[in-house]
């Protein structure tokens, strides 16, 4: 567990409002998570619904502290754009990972785990585990 270098979190949604609100919710629910870098990358650069490769790259660079970056996405083009950027090799920081997790629940788990100093694998596992959280 590293005290200084925390895993960064990027939240990619088709909607700028959704990405920003989920980021705020996850940080709020994580309590003392002020030290964790969480960046939303929502919508297109023009403010519409969609996915922007530029916003994703900028968000990932802004949260990278050398401990890796976990990227969570909502649907369709958000998933495909992150995968395409990862395939490029140089568009995202080293140790950036697309995390297979439900967007909101996974974001909360990822931020809490990153705040506790968990490494990238721990953040990924916590976010993915959110799939098994049953509501009924």
């Amino acid at each position, binding site marked *: 567990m590293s005290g200084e270098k925390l895993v960064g979190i990027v939240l990619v949604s088709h909607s700028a409002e959704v990405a920003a609100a989920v980021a705020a919710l996850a940080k709020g629910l994580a309590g003392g998570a002020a030290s964790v870098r969480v960046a939303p990358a929502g919508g297109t650069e023009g403010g519409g619904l969609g*996915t922007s490769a530029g916003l994703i790259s900028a968000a990932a660079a802004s949260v990278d502290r050398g401990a890796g970056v976990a990227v969570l996405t909502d649907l*369709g083009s958000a998933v495909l754009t992150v995968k395409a950027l990862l*395939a490029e090799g140089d568009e995202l920081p080293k140790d950036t990972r697309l995390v297979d997790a439900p967007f909101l629940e996974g974001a909360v788990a990822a931020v809490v785990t990153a705040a506790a100093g968990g490494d990238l694998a721990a953040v990924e596992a916590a976010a993915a585990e959110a799939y098994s959280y049953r509501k009924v």
Partner: protein
Amino acid sequence: MLDADFFRRWMTAAAASVDREAERLTALDAAIGDADHGSNMRRGFTAVQAELEKETPGTPGAVLMLAGRQLISTVGGASGPLYGTLLRRTGKTLGEAPEVSAEQLAEALKAGVQGVMKLGGAAAGDKTMIDALLPAVDALGDGFTAARAAAEQGAEATVPMLARKGRASYLGERSIGHQDPGATSSALLIAALAETAEG
């Protein structure tokens, strides 16, 4: 042999075709998707054309790599990373040769289509761009004109299919009876290639 100029002309023809057909692509997408395919593709290929005029890459591979990068950055929908991957994987396979043969292009496009299938997880018959692209690359051995016909038939053959990928898959049986917008734009891309080859 096909040089960088041939590939620039292909991209220019594709941009013109997408621009001409944007309303039709959006109308098809309105039936089973979110009604942005035409405007997304137009924005992407307009950016491709502007970038190719500014950068003038010197090899076939470099033209396709640059075009694919622009599509990933500017389209804003799933077609951006999908078409971007198609062109970039094809370009990467062509390497740094200043000229390539039609056979080499056919092989490289096959690799590009495989890349798209891996990225999107779609197979033949899922009512996607793959249903136009796979028959087109299979027919390329018989020439560009045969590939165009195969792509158009492939796109038309998506009408009775049930969508299994993307937003249209949420519609279930209601996706039946509509031509897939992605297969339609893929047929436009192959038609632009044939148009370029025929001169």
